[in-house]
């Protein structure tokens, strides 16, 4: 059928034609605009020449889980993911920018501080949840059956002559011998930081025993910036679009 061939050839030549430089740039601009980006991001390679990997690995797992959920939805199966993840339009992971330790070389109480830059958050979206994730190794220095109380605080105000004002965000109890990722709910802190960005003084983590004795987080097995790249602490924030994005006519 000549009309069939004509239409088929027309479509094939359209699809196989190479894009000119200008068309390619226009297509790149169009896709960046859909992603809500002003330009192409330029991620910086870290000192070792490789990017930090714990957050990307976690996010890649999340990407695959979301893709599976989308396929399941098409087949009318129940969504396997939690409500927060299923309803999220954007999920962002934040690399730890600063880490301060008050370890065994200082006086008690011991703590670890982390800071995340939330200035690049998407506009027109609201935070539905935020998590701080930190990896814990088995603690070999103490009784593995001993209970540890790990608490995470938002630093509200810092003083030069006295202890900082803190706000308790989340608390977990686990055995010293436990190993794996610990997840703390830091939604309240991320909401404060989004409302007032200069109030972002970071998070502080304490470890205590049942009898209230302070323990150095490092010796309790909690890994910081000096840990392996795949086990470095990071923060994840879930966003939901407050309204449908208005697309500019192009």
């Amino acid at each position: 059928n000549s009309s069939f061939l004509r239409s088929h050839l027309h479509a094939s030549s359209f699809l196989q034609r190479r894009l000119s430089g200008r068309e390619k740039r226009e297509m790149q601009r169009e896709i960046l605009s859909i992603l809500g980006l002003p330009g192409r991001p330029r991620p910086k390679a870290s000192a070792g020449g490789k990017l930090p990997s714990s957050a990307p690995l976690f996010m890649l797992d999340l990407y695959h889980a979301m893709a599976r959920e989308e396929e399941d939805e098409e087949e009318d199966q129940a969504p396997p993911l939690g409500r927060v993840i299923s309803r999220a339009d954007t999920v962002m992971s934040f690399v730890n920018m600063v880490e301060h330790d008050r370890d065994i070389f200082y006086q008690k109480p011991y703590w670890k501080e982390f800071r995340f830059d939330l200035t690049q958050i998407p506009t027109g979206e609201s935070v539905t949840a935020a998590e701080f994730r930190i990896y814990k190794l088995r603690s070999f220095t103490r009784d593995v059956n001993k209970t540890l109380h790990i608490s995470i605080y938002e630093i509200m105000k810092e003083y030069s002559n006295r202890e900082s004002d803190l706000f308790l965000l989340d608390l977990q109890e686990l055995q010293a011998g436990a190993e794996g990722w610990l997840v703390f709910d830091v939604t309240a802190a991320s909401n404060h930081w989004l409302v007032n960005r200069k109030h972002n003084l970071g998070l502080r983590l304490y470890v205590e025993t049942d009898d209230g004795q302070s323990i150095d987080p490092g010796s309790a097995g909690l890994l910081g910036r000096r840990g392996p790249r795949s086990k470095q602490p990071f923060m994840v924030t879930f966003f939901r679009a407050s309204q449908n994005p208005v697309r500019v006519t192009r």
Partner: protein
Amino acid sequence: AVKQLKKRQPKKTNDLPHPNKLPGIFDDIHVSEGRQVCRRHELYVSFQDLGWLDWVIAPQGYSAFYCEGECAFPLDSCMNATNHAILQSLVHLMKPEAVPKACCAPTKLSATSVLYYDSNNNVILKKHRNMVVKSCGCH
């Protein structure tokens, strides 16, 4: 009204037996009198070809489906058309100046996600709802 013997009707749906949603570079091709009927086309956008794999983590590319073709009466038996589109196509035949043809447009959309680095090495997973055309039809 005359009461007729009722036959058990199948569940009412706009999805006809063979919805036009086959994957591939071309979906099912229907050509009627030299005109291409409404169907789904694929235009694959490769992030690799765009040189973006330094910041786009996944996917490697994106199937940008679109709907194109004519909604001319009689509508193809395989076509995913609304009842209104069938009526509109008929009325268009009678009054082509007053009533336009039904439009070839997506009948089903699904979400897609993109995972990428920003300039601060943060990782962003963005879900775009109603982004991928799953099937086309006459509206």
